[in-house]
């Protein structure tokens, strides 16, 4: 008696088994050879990002405290030009933090607006640039910021516009 078997069906099933096994082995191979430096590299990028964030925070806080000092020292009775030069005096420092040269330069050159606005004050700085280099990587951020202060020199509103990231 001749037994007829559907051999093609069995081959497909066996292939399913073999392919699964092969895929598992390949996946394990990729996992074993995964470059763990990837995480370390991303840590470097994190450091760069956090430094940019620090520069930004520093500039904003510095402006806030210099404005407060300017206002306390008689800002209310000053004209806009006097207000600006008094602010420059207060914000001027005997040191520079690397990466914040653009900010300190803008303060020195007077490349900002500081004036009376309604019952309070308005500070505006445009195209402020922060750059960080780390090995082959570099990162730059350009931003504009505008801070509204009340008559006591306390912050009412802070607006930031990022112009360039990369």
């Amino acid at each position, binding site marked *: 008696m001749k037994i007829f078997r559907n051999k093609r069906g069995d081959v497909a099933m066996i292939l399913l088994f073999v392919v699964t096994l092969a895929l598992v082995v390949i996946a394990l191979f990729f996992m074993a050879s995964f470059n763990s430096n990837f995480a370390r590299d991303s840590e470097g990028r994190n450091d760069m990002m956090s*430094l940019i964030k620090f520069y930004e925070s520093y500039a904003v806080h510095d402006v806030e405290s210099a404005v407060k000092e300017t206002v306390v020292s008689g800002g209310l009775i000053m004209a806009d030009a006097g207000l600006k030069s008094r602010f420059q005096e207060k914000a001027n420092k005997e*040191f520079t*933090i690397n990466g914040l040269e653009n900010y300190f330069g803008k303060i020195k050159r007077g490349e900002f607006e500081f004036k009376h606005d309604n019952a309070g004050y308005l500070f505006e700085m445009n195209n402020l640039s922060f750059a960080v280099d780390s090995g082959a990587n570099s990162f730059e951020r350009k931003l504009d910021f505008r801070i509204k202060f009340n008559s006591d020199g306390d912050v009412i509103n802070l607006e930031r516009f990022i112009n360039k990231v990369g």
Partner: protein
Amino acid sequence: MTRRIFGKSRQEFSKENRWSKKMNVDTKGQLGKIITSIPIFIGIFVILSFYLVFVIFFFEIRNASLSFGIKGVEFGEILFKEIEIDGVKVNLLNGIIKADLESKKEEKNGRKSDYMFLVKEAIRLKLEKELFKGEYCLMLFQGGGNIIPENTRVAGNEKDIYYKFKDGKGEINYNVLEMSEYQTKGHLNRLIFNVEASEFEKRYDLSYYYGECLK
């Protein structure tokens, strides 16, 4: 007119397709196929289970190298907290930088500057007013790296700050073991930057923590 389907009359088409309606299933063949498939599927299931268990174990032991926390992004306002020294307002960070500049100036005159001590006192007084209840800790180490290598550095040194505030009262904490926990548990933020002034250049490497004390 007789309607035609695929070029054939209705009768012809119906006659040809009569057999297609009749189901001719090889039941035994199908059953055999199902039975032979079962061990194959069990095999696949076992292999995939093994793979999953292995993957879970693999990621568990390599967990440390896959943490992507963005540390140091939040500068926790503490570095920009305003303090008053000799009637002049500065933030903590500028105070720390100024302490070094003052120290450099005083060195030239053969004296020792106490500006950093004033900074530490000013931040303590400032925080005492803000922290009425509970336990809060502030630590700020300069120099980076391992903050407490073999207990050679203590919090009471000139540059480092370690305060414990309890119900509005701040005190220096000299417990080195307690401090080291903040580092080993990864609670310290780190900030590295360079400062330049006339005849002065320094790379600051700050490790700091400000918040509730670890239990």
